[in-house]
């Protein structure tokens, strides 16, 4: 049947663009097509949008995809969802958009993906190359691999420590009368066992902003590993990468395959030269992401050397706004590990007043030292 086929095809295009569309949705879409709403394109569009979208980002992408698919098979189709015929490529375009990335990076990705296992090896080697330059004295490939494994493990252990806090408290501060009475019905209403209320302690949420600019190049690969470990393991963690602009990278980091996830990010980190706009990136963060990812139990971890090509005043102002929202700001600066370093960079100077912990991050030990600090928050 014609309509059924078109709907199924449309559902497939949506799926390739990151929508989660199941059989149930497709079936309902057919019902909509058969209903009066299916008669007019405009009402069909809004009905299908309500049905197929599940998140705000879906919502924003939908109209574009819809008009590409239903209205024209001309130029626009080619531009918007370039790969209706080649699903893999179109999926990557979708991801690229979600991350605010340029396309060239992902053209490479597509190839790697198609090559399967080979792509993975390539990804790892990209990371390794970077890591070789990284952590200045680690050069032996085996050592590099060990460093990465350690970074990932460290991230996991940090998470375990923090989450366990939830269960420690046994006794509460207030008596829960209702539960107490309920529990003692078997004693004929005589109160013997007491039930207490305690405040549920939610685990700390960690938001990491990683500077991936040229000046941080030596350390980026290493931190990307760390990032993956944290986001993968922490239930409540979000990661952002910035250079001249800010990109939300948690979704691509959630890829279970470390090499692939890191690969995506390495390409991203590599792709951009030029200066760092910490202030502007923070502004983007404050404006668009902060409200969603930050709650009162959030520690924000900024990993950057503080070399900002923007105005220091801007950075200071944004730091102040950020400070008010979150619980702690930790600034990790790999340069602290260098001999005779003092925070002279103007950007760093502007940011420092709002930083709760200014710590080195040039080796694994310095990262491990953070764990007890985070656990105390």
């Amino acid at each position, binding site marked *: 049947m014609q309509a059924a086929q078109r709907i199924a095809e449309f559902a497939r295009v949506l799926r390739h663009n990151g929508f*989660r569309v*199941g059989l*149930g*949705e497709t079936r*309902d879409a057919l*019902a*909509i097509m058969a*209903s*009066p*709403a299916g008669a007019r394109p*405009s*009402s069909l569009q*809004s*009905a299908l*949008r*309500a*049905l197929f*979208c*599940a*998140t*705000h980002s*879906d*919502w924003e992408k939908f109209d574009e995809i819809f008009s590409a698919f239903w209205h024209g098979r001309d130029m626009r189709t080619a531009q918007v969802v370039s790969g209706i015929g080649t699903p893999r490529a179109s999926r990557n375009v979708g991801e690229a958009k979600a991350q605010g990335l340029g396309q060239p990076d992902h053209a490479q990705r597509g190839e790697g993906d198609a090559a399967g296992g080979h792509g993975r090896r390539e990804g790892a080697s990209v990371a390794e190359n970077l890591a070789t330059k990284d952590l200045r004295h680690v050069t032996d490939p085996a050592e590099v691999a060990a460093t990465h494994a350690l970074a990932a493990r460290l991230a996991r252990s940090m998470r375990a420590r923090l989450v366990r806090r939830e269960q420690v408290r046994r006794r509460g501060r207030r008596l829960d009368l*209702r539960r107490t*009475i*309920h529990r003692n*019905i078997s004693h*004929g*209403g005589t109160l013997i066992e007491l039930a207490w209320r305690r405040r*549920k302690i*939610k685990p700390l949420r960690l938001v990491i902003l990683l500077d991936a600019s040229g000046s941080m190049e030596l350390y980026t690969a290493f931190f990307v590993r760390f990032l993956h470990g944290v986001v993968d393991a922490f239930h409540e963690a979000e990661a952002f990468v910035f250079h001249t602009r800010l990109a939300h990278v948690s979704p691509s980091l959630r890829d279970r395959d470390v090499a692939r996830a890191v690969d995506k990010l390495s390409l991203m980190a590599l792709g951009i030269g030029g200066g760092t706009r910490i202030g502007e990136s923070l502004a983007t963060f404050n*404006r668009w992401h902060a*409200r*969603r990812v930050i*709650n009162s139990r959030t520690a924000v971890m900024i990993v950057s050397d503080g070399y900002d090509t923007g105005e220091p005043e801007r950075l200071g102002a944004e730091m102040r*706004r950020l400070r008010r929202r979150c619980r702690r700001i930790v600034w990790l600066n790999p340069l602290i590990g260098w001999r005779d370093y003092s925070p002279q960079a103007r950007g760093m100077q502007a940011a420092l007043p709002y930083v709760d912990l200014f710590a080195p991050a040039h080796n694994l030990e310095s990262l491990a030292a953070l764990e007890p600090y985070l656990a105390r928050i």
Partner: protein
Amino acid sequence: MTLDRENISNRLAAVSYIADRDIATALWLMEFLKRPLLLEGEAGVGKTEVAKALAAVHGAELIRLQCYEGLDQNAALYEWNYQRQLLAIKTREGENAETIEEHIFSERYLLERPLLAAIRRTAPPVLLVDEIDRADEEFEAFLLELLSDFQITIPELGTVKAITIPRVVLTSNGTRELSDALRRRCLYHYVDFPDVDREARIIMARLPGVETTLALQIARLVNAIRKEDLRKVPGVAETLDWAATLAGLGLHDLRQEPEAIHETMMCLLKTHEDRSRLTREVTERLLGKVA
């Protein structure tokens, strides 16, 4: 009874809810596919109002479950009236234990909470699960189960099946990511701030005393203010407050008294930082643009 889309728009207008076309479609689709509707959007865009309007359209009862951190099944579903049970046990001391038990675990001692209430009504109500993102994930999972089966098991009483299937509206402010399963289950609508025309119509619908010119000016100015870099963007409720204030001051035209605008800005801006950002000059500049 399935209403068609136009019918729903008309009825929404009749209960003085100014709907855009998309939301009318979503509400129609809810009926048509019998799925819950998930509304997302910034605070103050009128998500809760949608549910209220829906209830008014169907002449149904609105049952609201406000979610909060630590909300559990006892507060959402049902609870035994322990005090009364205890009393009953005391007064019947000496009777057969089984009789007592049967007695105290009967409907008389059951306290209905919103979810149970929603499935036990004879006429289908509108169930509004407000700010679902504030509830814990466990609760979300539980809710999902309820939404697919529409039955609840009370260990002492047995299974309670839904008499009628409620219309379910969920709202979320995005303080936490919702599970994919829940999102999949629901229709989705992203509620944005109303555009100028719609907001003006909302003002006039809610505040009959406000004239068209003033309502349009207010809507335009608020729209411009929302584009400024603010910590708390004013919602529709704030606009209405402000419009009421200005109308109360006897204004017919915003240009008439720029001073009054600045002084009443407290209706819109609720933080000190925002107040100091929107200085007199900024307000005047915005006013010059829109009025």
